[in-house]
């Protein structure tokens, strides 16, 4: 796939003046492309006169950055303490089993990416699952099962 780098150029121009802003720059790249493409990293390195490895050092350190494209919908299963005690691990295991992917991966059809998050701060509604930006509280295996089916049927699958 060919990556359109004009947006990368635009973002680099916005940030190149200010110091210490490599992380916000990368956050904006990710917001634009959905992930941080290799081509963008190379361009940033060239334009800012730094080594690509410095950028990768940051990208791989912070959990928020992705180096590969994401699925259409991102499922985040909260693994905070309250969710763990209320059965969040079982829900993550179930989803991983159902979708046939491990956390951090995307289904072959590109519909779902599965992720764990450390805590969403909604401990009173534990266990919590977030699909895109919709929060689902007090989840059970049956409830998430129905949710996934709903998303699949909306995709026509």
């Amino acid at each position, binding site marked *: 796939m060919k990556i359109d780098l004009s947006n990368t150029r635009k973002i680099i121009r916005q940030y190149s003046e200010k110091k210490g802003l490599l992380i916000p720059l990368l956050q904006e790249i990710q917001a634009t492309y959905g992930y941080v493409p290799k081509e963008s990293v190379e361009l940033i390195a060239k334009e800012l006169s730094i080594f690509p490895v410095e950028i990768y050092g940051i990208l791989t*350190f912070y959990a928020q950055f992705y180096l590969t494209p994401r699925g259409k919908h991102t499922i985040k299963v909260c693994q905070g303490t309250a969710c763990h*005690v209320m059965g969040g691990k079982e829900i993550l295991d179930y989803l991983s089993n159902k979708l046939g992917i491990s956390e951090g991966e995307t289904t072959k059809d590109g519909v779902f990416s599965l992720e764990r998050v450390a805590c969403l*701060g909604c401990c009173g509604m534990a266990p919590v699952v977030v699909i895109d930006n919709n929060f689902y509280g007090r989840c059970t295996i049956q409830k998430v099962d129905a949710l996934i089916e709903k998303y699949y049927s909306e995709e026509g699958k």
Partner: protein
Amino acid sequence: MKFKILICMGTSGISAGAEEVAKAFETELKRKNLMDKCKIVRVGDRGLFRDPLVDIITPELGRVTYEYTKPEDVPQIVEEHLLQGKPVERLRAGKDYEQFFSGQMRIVLSNCGEIDPEDIDDYIAHGGYDALKKVLFSAPEKVIDEIEKSGLRGRGGAGFPTGLKWRFCKEAKGDVKYVVCNADEGDPGAFMDRSILEGDPHSVLEGMIIAGYAIGATKGFIYCRAEYPLAVKRLNIAISQAREKGLLGDNILNGSFSFDITIVQGAGAFVCGEETALLASIEGRRGTPRPRPPFPAQKGLWGKPTLINNVETFANIRHIIVKGAEWFSSIGTEKSKGTKVFALAGKVKNTGLVEVPMGTTIRELIYGPGGGMKKKRVKLKGVQIGGPSGGCLPESLLDIPIDYESINQTGAIMGSGGMIVMDEKTCMVDIAKFFLNFTVAESCGKCLPCRIGLKRMLEVLEEITEGRGKEEHISFLQEMGNTVKATALCGLGNTAPNPVLTTLKYFPDEYEAHIRDKICPSHVCTELVKFEVVEEKCVKCGLCYKACPTGAIEWKKKEYPRINKEKCIKCKACIGACDYGAIQ
């Protein structure tokens, strides 16, 4: 006077549908021509998860609270309550709601759920920025004296005296100084900082501006967790409103003091909550900690003296300035002053944010505002406090007072204030493993004890929970735990063994059951569960049958269920559903 309708709209409220309820009120008020008589105020979350929560305030009836409000309830509330003056009894918040709030002392949270966080005038109407106005007329030295006298200690975990930290920063040499607010709140199980930022952002800004004035800084940063988009949005609004009013920026309130604040968003790394890692992250680098000294108060952001305090710490400042150090230090215990906000969750009836005076016992907290166990029949086994740096305390220690020293003595720490109530269905070995999984994943890898020591401990816990435990594992965990604690570079490693060490100390029989008898008494560790129905315990209720997602459980009314092992995927939904521990 106008009728006021308060609707709680933090992350929790919004996800429960509070915006739809607010829209329904708008439509209904328009339909009934009541728009001029009523004011809808979108407030922050109040800390109790019974959303959507709606308060109606009228001159005749005062304040009436509705819980679990749905858009379809709105026409009835408008018709009966607002027009006829008769509250809708079936929707009113009941005894639990009252119990939750009556046991609390709300200082830091006093505005949360009461004011519109996106409206600076509402904050000002509630005494906002009074403290700043007062401070600008006194010497910076006096401000620091006041904070020192109050006895306030940092709420970010370690409990360092705030006034002393401010003094170090003021006395540090440097032309440029910075104030940083630590809003990284990465502790899984704590969400008070988020609620304060979402519900009362100006209180944090005010605390930071006062700190800037006291130490002689002109620039502040708020390092906010990436997972908190609503908090960031409301902070941005608050900052621009404060600038418009001349409370932030050049020549604050036309005086000689200037101070401005920038928000920096984290990118998902727990260790960035540690102060030196946080500074590295703001500077745009990998967030790895460095040895202290030099402390950030001496050499912080870009080598300049930097004051770092937690969100809740800053939110306390304005109350101390307005009401005085003496008032503040009259609350709490000898060495721990004021209140602390706890995030109460787990198997307790009322979950949410609870603010109580220091010195309250854990039992008072759980059985007061918490309302006791969610299911009366179920026994409390233990309480986890302080998150991944904290520990698990048994029932017998519930009567210790909550203050920094008493909690440290148990082997746990106050931490940020997460408090998770656990019952017989929680396996303590599994909980220890859960926290180590977290700290191993979040360890930055810079120092050896944390990078390798924790990993070895996790591997041993995996052996134990998977049925391959050996006697000598217990002494190994103890020795390695104490070594990592003593030798790791930063607070992450220094405290990460605590969950393991405290469960070993208070729940040794659970480790023994896993190791010697190869059973998990709570039926949590999958490899040790047989997935069989114990007929002596079963009441034939069929809840397991209904919970099973794969149809592996065969059951008919008045008969014992049977689990078909071919279809069973060991998801444990049945164990979660059974109240009688009948599946083992």
